[in-house]
């Protein structure tokens, strides 16, 4: 009876052994496949990220270039205004407008009097003299 039982159990044991071997191989394969897929996905993500970044950099560069163009235009405009200002300050133009359009006239000559210390003293003395006389 015991021998029969032993015999009946043997093939089952063998089958179990074979099955276990198979399970071990599959796990190894799954791990390496998963790793490759992960690396592939990571690579794709990196490429996508780089592409997005590149696009953004390019877009910014275009914006910078456009802004530089605007800056140049503004500078040119500023220069134009500086020149215009200098043109407006031209004495010839001012004189033409003053005499022609505004009806202004060239001022009569102004004679300046140089006041020296002696002049002031004399004037003060004369005034004091005048007050003294008046008070007499």
């Amino acid at each position, binding site marked *: 009876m015991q021998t029969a039982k032993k015999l009946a159990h043997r093939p089952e044991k063998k089958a179990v052994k074979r099955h276990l071997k198979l399970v071990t191989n599959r796990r190894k394969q799954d791990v390496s496949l998963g790793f490759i897929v992960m690396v592939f996905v990571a690579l794709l993500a990196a490429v996508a990220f780089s592409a997005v970044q590149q696009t953004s950099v390019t877009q910014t560069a275009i914006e910078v270039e456009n802004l530089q163009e605007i800056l140049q*235009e503004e500078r040119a405009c500023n220069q134009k205004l500086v*020149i215009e200002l200098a043109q407006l300050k031209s004495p*010839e133009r001012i004189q033409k407008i003053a005499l022609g359009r505004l009806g202004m006239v060239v001022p009569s000559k102004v*004679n300046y009097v*140089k006041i020296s210390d002696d002049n002031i003293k004399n004037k003060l003395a004369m005034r004091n003299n005048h007050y003294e006389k008046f008070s007499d």
Partner: protein
Amino acid sequence: MSAKSRKRGNARLFFIIGLFFLGFLAVAMRLVDVQAVEAERYEDLAKKQRLRSIEIAPKRGNVYDRNGNLLATSADAVTVYANPYFIKESESIASQLSLILKIDERTLLEKLNKDSGFVYLARKINQSVAKRIKALKIEGIGFLNESKRCYPCDELASHVIGFVGIDNNGLVGLEMFYDDVLRGLPGRLLVEKDPIGRSISTGIFELSPSIDGKDVILTIDKTIQFKAEEELTACIEEFNAKSGNIIVMNPKTGEILAIANYPSFDLNNYTQADSSYFRNRAITDLFEPGSTIKMIIGAAALEERIYEPTDVFRLPDRIKVADKIIKDSHSRPTEDFTFTRIISESSNVGAVVIGQKLGKKRICDYLSTFGFGQKTGIDFPGEVRGYVPAPEKWSGSSIGNIPFGQGMSATSLQVLQAFSIIANDGLLVEPNILNKIIDTNGKIIKEVECKQGEKVLSSKTAKRMKQILEKAITEGTGENAQIDSYRVAGKTGTAQKARTDGKGYEKDKYVASFVGFAPVEDPQIAIIVVIDEPKEVIYGGHVAAPVFKNLAEFSLRYLKIPPS
């Protein structure tokens, strides 16, 4: 899933991975080929295709007057060019551009059909015009940023400032003399561009920046310059003269406040003017100075103690020297002249008598001492030396004409410098137009300091000559130069013009001049007025002296110089 189907799936996966691997391998091999084996060749090809080397033109420096008023500047402009190989439908493009650029359609068409890769269509046009062309988006039409010289005051000080050529190089005047300072250094930009012409942000970008030109500040005063030009033009028109020039200078420092020339021209349209108009005649043209030279003869006689101002001479109105008869300008009986009167009333006979006593060697020495026959050293191109014959080259009659300024030649600036010696108590100063050079940040790079002049005449002689020249205004030939409330000293000059064939003098052609300074007690301005070929009235006292009066009166008040 059965083991068989699983096995088949794995094989497929490995096959795909293998394919990818092979693909990558092929790409990698190609990369190695492109980036290592054939790298140099491809690099060269790529560079040629993408890299653009752009010259960055420096901004040319500005020119200002002594008070900071802008006289010359540069504005951004655009140059339009074409690559005729890319031009399609040249006729319609020419007609479109002709309307915008206002250039003849045929001229444009000729350019567009040229067998060349580059042709200028219009240089240095306004930004707004360029914008209109850009909007048309024509293939084969390109644009270059350049700068264009602008002169906001048009004709003002045109002979002094000068102008630049199409490539911004100074051609005339101070633009030429200070070209190295104003021009700056060009930079270079090496940039990678995409097919549309935009720069690639991550590509090569090498910039060696341009260095802008420095600004130049002149000693010229815009207001005095304007007044000088106005007075000169009025005088030329009144006397129907051929040309003329005026210089206003500070006799103590040598600073030039104004140089006016007639005929004048517009700096913004100089191509339309005759090239003879570009000369700064006050510095580049010679004339026989006439009686203004009597001042030097007189100063030499006083310095050598040959005569005193009060010495009396009995003079006829004519005198024979060698084969020539020298006459005074007006007939008169023989009469007594003091030394002072000879100069103040401008007697030719008297000047010859003094000259004969001085002798030709001393005359030549003193003319040289006063700066004749040599350049003044002014910072301006084209200055000439003038001509004073050496004693050994004098003819028998030279002693009969050089003492009153004939038979020799000088520039207006030389004559003014000589009179400034008297104004400056015997000190000779070098005239200058440059005041400062500043960089773009306003830092002073160079400043012209007022040099102590060289003593060429004793103070005593200078003072005595000042009194004689003052007499020339109050009692002599320069009465028309008198100014209310200011003491003025000066001398008139009327010289015959030499014939161009070298055979004597023209009969009816004269140069009228006046040179003087004010106020006598502390001279602040020295002015020379030279009028070439005035008609009807020819005398310096009538033609040039009133111009001096108006200009000196204006300048003294404008400079707030107190009256005498």
